[in-house]
C-alpha cells in the first residue's frame, strides 16, 4: 500500500517536473537590420515583421521594410553571441544570461568599424525590441529583435 503511494507520488512529481521544464526550453531570437523607406509600390513586408508591421508604419512613417541583414539564433545556454550584418552595418548581440521571462542582451551597432550605438536590454518573448538607427539616404535604418 505504502509502496504504491510512493510510486504514484513519484510519477506525479516526475510529470510536474516534466511539464515545468519546457518553460525554460531553448528560444530563438531573430535579429534584423531593416531598412525602412517610402516607395510608390512597396514590397511585401518580411514575415518576421508581420507581427509589428502596423506599429513600424505608424511610428516611423515608412511603407516599405526590407531586411538588409539578419540572424536567427537558437539560445541553448542563454550565454551566446551572434552577429547580424549587412554590407556596411553589423549588429553584435551578446546574450548575458536568461531571466525568468527572457534574456539579458548587450547590443552593439557598428558602421563598418565604428561603434555607433551600444545598449543593454532585457528581451522578452512578449515584446519585440526596435531601435531607431541612423538615417540612410531617404530611409531609416532600424534594428529589430524578436524572441520567437
Amino acid at each position, binding site marked *: 500500500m505504502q509502496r504504491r503511494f510512493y510510486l504514484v507520488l513519484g510519477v506525479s512529481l516526475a510529470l510536474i517536473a516534466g511539464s515545468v521544464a519546457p518553460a525554460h526550453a531553448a528560444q530563438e531570437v531573430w535579429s534584423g537590420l531593416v531598412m525602412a523607406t517610402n516607395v510608390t509600390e512597396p514590397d511585401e513586408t518580411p514575415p518576421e515583421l508581420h507581427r509589428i508591421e502596423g506599429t513600424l508604419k505608424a511610428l516611423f512613417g515608412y511603407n516599405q521594410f526590407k531586411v*538588409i541583414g539578419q540572424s536567427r539564433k537558437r539560445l541553448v545556454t542563454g550565454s551566446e553571441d551572434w552577429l547580424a550584418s549587412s554590407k556596411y552595418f553589423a549588429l553584435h548581440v551578446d546574450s548575458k544570461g536568461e531571466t525568468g521571462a527572457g534574456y539579458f542582451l548587450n547590443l552593439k551597432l557598428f558602421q563598418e568599424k565604428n561603434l555607433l550605438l551600444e545598449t543593454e536590454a532585457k528581451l522578452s518573448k512578449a515584446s519585440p525590441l526596435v531601435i531607431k538607427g541612423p538615417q540612410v539616404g531617404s530611409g531609416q535604418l532600424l534594428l529589430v529583435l524578436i524572441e520567437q
Partner: protein
Amino acid sequence: MKTFEEKWTAWLDGELAGNELAEFEASLPDKAAAQEEKRDAKKLGAFLKEQLQARSMGNEEFFHHQLRERIATDAGEARTREKVSAKPALWPIGRLVWAGAASLAIFSLCTFLILREKTAPDQSQYLTQILNARVDPTVSPNATISMFETKEDKVTVLWVDGLQSLPSEYAAK
C-alpha cells in the same frame, strides 16, 4: 472350520459348548495352565470394564458452552483466512481508476498552482526593458536617446535621434 486361535478366543469368552468344548479342551496340552490363563483374562476384562466406564460430567452445560464458543471462534478464523487468501494481489480495476483519477487531479492542481505562481508576478517584467543606451559622442555629438513602449503590440522602442546621416549606398545588403 475354525482355527485354533478362534477356538481359543471363543473358549476364553465361554462361547464354546458341547462337543466343540470337549474337543477343544482335549486338544489343550496343559489344561491347568489354560484354565489359569482364562481366569486372568476374565479378571482383566472385569477390571477394564470397571475402569473404562464413561464418567458422568459434573458441569455439562458449561462444557457445552465452552465447546460452542471454541467452534464459533474456529469458524471465524477459517472465514478470515478464506477472505485473506481470496484477496487479489493487485488492486481491482475500480480502485485503480480512482487512484489514477486522484493522481491526475493532484497533478493538475500542482501544475496549475506552479504555473500560476510563475506567471502571476508583475506583468512589466514580461516586457522588453532597455536598461541603458549610449552613443559615441565623438561620432554623434548631438544624439539624444529616449525609450518607450507601444500599447498595441507592446513593442519596446529605443529612439535615437541625431545620429550621423549616411548616404543611400549604406542601405546595401
